[in-house]
């Protein structure tokens, strides 16, 4: 590609990489390689983030991620990890219900140590 296109893609780069064509061309090539690789990595990273979030959410209820997913598989609940992580963040009561379903399907986790709750918070 010609210099104009290279400089257009080099916007925001540090130092001479945005101004000088020889350096900019190298950096832009590298940037495009990274973006190719990271379009594939992004899918892996997002799934890993969902799993970490689900793990944190279930551990608040005393179940770890592995046992939780095993319980869901046994009950044939096919919710994917993206949706499960969103439920764990935004719909706590529904998530607790899911954790209870999983715990009944595959017991063996101890309830979490939680601070004393009063009123409606007991339901969580």
């Amino acid at each position, binding site marked *: 590609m010609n210099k104009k296109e290279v400089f257009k893609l080099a916007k925001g780069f540090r130092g001479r990489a945005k101004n000088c064509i020889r350096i900019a061309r190298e950096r832009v090539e590298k940037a495009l390689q990274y973006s190719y690789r990271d379009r594939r990595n992004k899918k892996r990273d997002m799934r890993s983030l969902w799993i970490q979030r689900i793990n944190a959410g279930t551990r608040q209820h005393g179940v770890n991620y592995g046992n939780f997913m095993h319980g869901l598989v046994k009950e044939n609940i096919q919710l994917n990890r993206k949706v499960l992580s969103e439920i764990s*963040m935004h719909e706590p009561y529904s998530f607790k219900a899911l954790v209870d379903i999983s715990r009944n399907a595959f017991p063996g986790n101890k309830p979490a140590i939680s*601070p004393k709750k009063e009123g409606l918070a007991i339901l969580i």
Partner: protein
Amino acid sequence: MAMAVNCATSSSLLLTKPSNKPSLKKTPFVGFSLPAAPKPSIQLNRVSKICCQEKTALVPAGQQWMFDDITGPDVWNKTWYPKAADHINTDKPWYIVDATDKILGRLASTIAIHIRGKNLATYTPSVDMGAFVIVVNAEKVAVSGKKRTQKLYRRHSGRPGGMTVETFDQLQKRIPERIIEHAVRGMLPKGRLGRSLFTHLKVYTGPDHPHEAQKPVELPIRDKRIQKQT
């Protein structure tokens, strides 16, 4: 948070030709045949059109309630990322833990998890979602085995021959807070965010701390082997 569902979900019926409308009278969810009702005009038109984010979709009447509020952003199909209002420092919880006779590494691990925010379902690696932790009685922290005399703390000034080596014992006599700080710093991520997370750890020798105004809560510890066996 409001569940603003847009029409990209599979439960909506997307059609390109408007002529197919009459054939949708019997939707998959309306399994029974409709009885002869006195208002045929409404029954013939049991699908309604909704328009959300420049896309249109046809929704059967029974599911209309799900699409009442589609003005907001798409919560379910985009992974949530915290806004500035979700991690204001003044709203974060403060925890307090007494380090007396607790095993150093296990204590540091629990502290690091809470500071980083990994115990929360809203955990995000690029944002500081964690809490503040106060450690008191730092000089009474315990280690097992012979570590009290054998564990070495090294530091280097950068100049040749500038390495200083101290044992756990000597450092505890000199600067007791540094032991817990060193342990927790090794367990936090290294980088800009890790350095700012480290500032959320407050270690004090003795039982007093100046943070009564933050009303710290007891740190919930799930590790059963953290207390030193006497």
